[in-house]
């Protein structure tokens, strides 16, 4: 039982390293917010900052209205730190 407990704590800390960070990255924070809370919308002020992005186009329905959303998302090379 103790072994299971130790392994649970170990796996917990590994999972924590995937999901929590002590270093605040302003750039990635804004990118995460843009994608998780805003459909990765790339508005007029959006800039790639020399990172590698994909470009997409979605149609989103919010409060009964449908509209096109121009998108940009960090891709496999751009997302790493």
């Amino acid at each position, binding site marked *: 039982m103790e072994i299971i407990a130790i392994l649970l704590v170990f796996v*917990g800390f*590994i999972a924590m390293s995937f999901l929590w960070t002590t270093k605040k990255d302003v750039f990635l924070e804004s*990118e995460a917010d843009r994608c*998780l809370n805003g459909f990765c919308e790339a508005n007029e002020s959006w800039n790639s900052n020399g990172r590698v992005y994909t470009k*997409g186009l979605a149609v989103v329905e919010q409060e009964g209205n449908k509209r096109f959303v121009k998108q940009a998302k960090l891709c496999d090379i751009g997302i790493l*730190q």
Partner: protein
Amino acid sequence: MQNEVCKWAGWIPTNKGEIDFNYIELPENIEVSKGNFEINSTKKEFKNLDVSYLSDSYGYKHYLKYSSKKPTESKIIANVLFEKVHDKIIGTAQIEYVKFVTIKTKFEIEKNGVVLFDGLEASQSISGFEKEIKTLLYVLVKTIVHGDAHHHQKIDIALDISDGDFQPNVVSKSFLNYIKLAEKNTKKTNNCESILRNENIVFEIEGYFSYFESFCKLFETEQTKTDKEFAKNVINSLKNTVAKRKNKEIFTSSIITTAIAFFGILVTVNLLLNGFWIPTSNELVCFFNEQNRYYYFLATLVFVLLLFFHATKCKLKSYVYYHYYEQFEFIKLLKNTSFGRLNWYGKLIKLSPIVLIGVGILLMFLVN
């Protein structure tokens, strides 16, 4: 029905130097149901393809559906037809954002990979989004003809389209730009989760460059030749950066391995020698009864797990990045979002490691 009179062009990558009608097929991630395709020696038609991956937020649909405002995203359906006419392939491509708009175009693919689109028919106004729609239609056709669907990676995002006639210099410049971006981003990424990625990027870029070379052979201009030479320089710079890092890593790991081996051998040899020489009077051996030996084992287990925590974390992250990229991407965004900005589903995922640690600690107290 709105009919835009417009033409645009792009290039479908081929390292063979010519597009082969026989190679046209759906990539693995696009499925077509029975009765929705017709394939023979001169015609290939695919209907009702789910191409929702053309949206960048498609991968987060499970997360977004738990948002309080409940925004929904339209599914994207495509119909594509290819017909072989002499040396060319002609066809039509249609994208439908379900219950919103249907967009249709005609295209012609030349033997050398040049694809020319003609006209944009839409069931309602697409004003302000023409460029994105043209790119999506190009990506759709290119994906099926070229045979890969890495929409989120590499070639798909790299090759630009040009309005009007085909312009080799536009494609050549986008090849060079992408190689430069890959090099720049690789130089900036230097932590443990990117080790595998950074080593493989050299091979990926070399594969990518082989298409660039084929392109330059097909469309040789002063500009494409110059771009290719610059691309070679950038790739050399990338190779040197990766090789230099690898040497440094090998040296660092050899120091760590030596230190671990030194202490490991010191401890084990001392335990063995003390135990065998004077077994009865050896305090270490006599001190550990069966119960204590179990605790000694637990203590060493904790020590070893702590010692290998960093290495396990790095290898696991690299592995998840390579084999489960979509999940890695989602987790990465969760990691960088403040707790308060997440919906309840995101909060639940973010809290899961704390729950695991809590359960582990609780178990320890319960058994003692």
